[in-house]
């Protein structure tokens, strides 16, 4: 399971994790449950239907399959599988019972979504499992505890019957060592706070937390001593002006003449603007250090992924997958 606050790139990390797990000839299923079609966008393929299909390959004959789990389809499939509904299924749909069950009946929606993931982990082909691993691009950290614990909620609600049994088995799988919930964050205050809250909640529910993935890491562009100077507001303008001169910025591009005074003023203004940006950079680096320390204190392995200047494409996903493999969670 891969969760994270909105905007931290959890779908990207889930996809990279699926690729990493597929390396060496394994077959992995990557699922999404929020109807966003995030996987299709990421892999640049047409919208995913409610059917498993192969979307990428990995080394040694590895394969990543993808599935967008849709609650209504999952419910109809479930009813067909267990109750051979036929015409009654259509009636349920017309009456709005399917809508009801998937939008309002407490917890049922989540049981269906997680239940489908559960089914994929159990499925066998001959004697071997169909998938070596299943990766879920899970709901965001704000809801993750609720979503994964809803099986309990339903178990409490439905005292007997098939849903209760189903919910119980799902919960057993989720709590076992076969599951890991990875939390994706970036080094900003709110996402880190949400990561801490989610971790505490997952512990409370008894779900195993895997790694904390720090996504979109950027290296400081200034030396430590310069960062310190910048935070104190003491970066020397004259040195930067000299540097700009050395870079040939003293020469005016284009024609026209410029007096020496005007030239100096122009370079100083540029230097000051650059220094102001350097100060912002230093403040951000300091803030990131603080947040990093908070995450280190959580007692889970911390994995780092870099910010990719050129955005995310398939090549970038393979690169991130390689980094995940090198650091352990896959």
């Amino acid at each position, binding site marked *: 399971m891969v969760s994270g606050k909105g*905007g931290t790139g959890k779908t990207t990390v889930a996809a990279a994790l699926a690729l990493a797990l597929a390396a060496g000839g394994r077959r992995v299923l990557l699922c999404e449950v929020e109807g966003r079609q995030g996987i299709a966008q990421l892999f640049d393929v047409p919208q995913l239907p409610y059917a498993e299909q192969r979307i990428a390959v990995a080394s040694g004959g590895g394969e990543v399959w993808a599935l967008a789990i849709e609650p209504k389809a999952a419910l109809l499939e479930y009813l067909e599988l267990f109750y051979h509904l036929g015409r*009654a299924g259509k009636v349920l749909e017309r009456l*709005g019972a399917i*809508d009801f069950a998937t939008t309002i009946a407490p917890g049922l929606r989540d049981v269906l979504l997680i239940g489908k993931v559960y089914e994929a982990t159990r499925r066998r082909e001959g004697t071997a499992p169909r998938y070596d691993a299943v990766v879920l691009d899970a709901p965001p950290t704000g809801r993750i505890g609720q979503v994964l614990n809803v099986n309990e909620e339903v178990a409490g609600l*439905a005292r007997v019957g098939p849903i209760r049994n189903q919910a119980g088995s799902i919960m057993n799988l989720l709590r076992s060592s076969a599951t890991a919930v990875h939390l994706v964050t970036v080094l900003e205050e709110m996402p880190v706070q949400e990561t801490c809250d989610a971790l505490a909640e997952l512990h409370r529910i008894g779900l195993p937390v895997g790694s904390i993935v720090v996504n979109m890491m950027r290296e400081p562009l200034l030396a430590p001593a310069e960062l310190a100077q910048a935070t104190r507001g003491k970066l020397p303008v004259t040195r930067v002006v000299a540097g700009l001169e050395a870079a040939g910025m003293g020469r005016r591009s284009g024609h026209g003449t410029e007096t020496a005074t005007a030239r100096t003023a122009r370079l100083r203004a540029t230097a000051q*603007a650059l220094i102001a*940006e350097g100060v912002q950079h230093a403040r951000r680096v300091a803030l990131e250090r603080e947040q990093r320390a908070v995450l280190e204190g959580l007692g889970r392995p911390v994995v780092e992924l870099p910010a990719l200047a050129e955005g995310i494409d398939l090549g970038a996903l393979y690169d991130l997958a390689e980094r995940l493999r090198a650091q352990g969670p896959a």
Partner: protein
Amino acid sequence: MSAPALDIDAVLADRAVQVMVCCGAGGVGKTTTSAALALRAAERHGRRVVVLTIDPARRLAQSLGLAELDNSPRPVVGVEAAGEGRLDAMMLDMKRTFDEVISAHASPEKAEQIFANPFYQALSTSFAGTQEYMAMEKLGQLRARASGARAGQGWDLIVVDTPPSRSALDFLDAPQRLGSFLDGRLIRVLTAPARVGGRAYLKVVSAAVGSATGVMTKVLGAQVLRDLQTFVAALDTVFGSFRARAERTYEMLQQPGTAFLVIAAPEADALREASYFVERLRDERMPLAGLVLNRVHRSAASHLGAERAAAAAEELDDAEDPPSLTVGLLRVHADLMRRHRREQALASRFTGAHPDVAVAEVDALAEDVHDLSGLREIGERLAG
């Protein structure tokens, strides 16, 4: 392509505007923007404002005096209001709001019965549309209180933050969905299956309904179905019509006294959501004031482009004894300019599609906002 500038101060000063709704995707700074707008309206424009926040970050909530959740507005301490101006703030407690609705409309015994039902427990705390519905409900209540108050009391501006939905559109859809479910066909079937009968086609329906409830009993178990039937029956008598309430709020939002602000950050997903929202508001004839683009990056040295800065840094770095500070600063600048360019490209794609939507850009701050002075700073930047 450049968009018309959104004059935030003109909107805040306009006494005809009595409700401002801030909507947009999650994580774009909706709550902070709502609080900053409310504060500015009170301090600069002498408005009597109440801000309804949904899920503020802890430290921002503390700075607004929202540490205690009591589901009713409290004055914010430290506001330097102009003239008659004032600022009250509250944080939505969805469960309590739902309980209040039940208590207000049901006899005490009936209310107890509803509160004890497991379906109510779940519906009032975890159904994905309840927060949206309750935000609308609370807005309706605040509006009634504002207009009911004698002159000089109450509020003349309500600023509403919207729930952090999966999709920004949920805010408009969920109340309707909850409403239509609660008066829907399924409910009628569950509550009165025996009523159906008589004419031939009804027999067919009845048979189908019989098999449908049969299946539901099998799937859910008889106890669950009974709980559900009691719950639905109890709610049904209490509310009369959920849909009518949702529709009234909807109509209120279409009035010219409402101003919608769509909030976004210069990122592809957030702007895509903003586009959907703008189109949807137009379809629903809801008054859109404009787009607030948060966390925009720009440079005071924008004449120095990304490529030139990066090339200069490379060249200096190759020299003997390179001036490391200048090299570093040029790289910081090159990053910033690349980011600026990417953001502007996204923003102009939005503006190309919606050339008539006014836009206010708010520069990114290095740190998160958690006090009134931070909110004032955001207000300044909003006003341009």
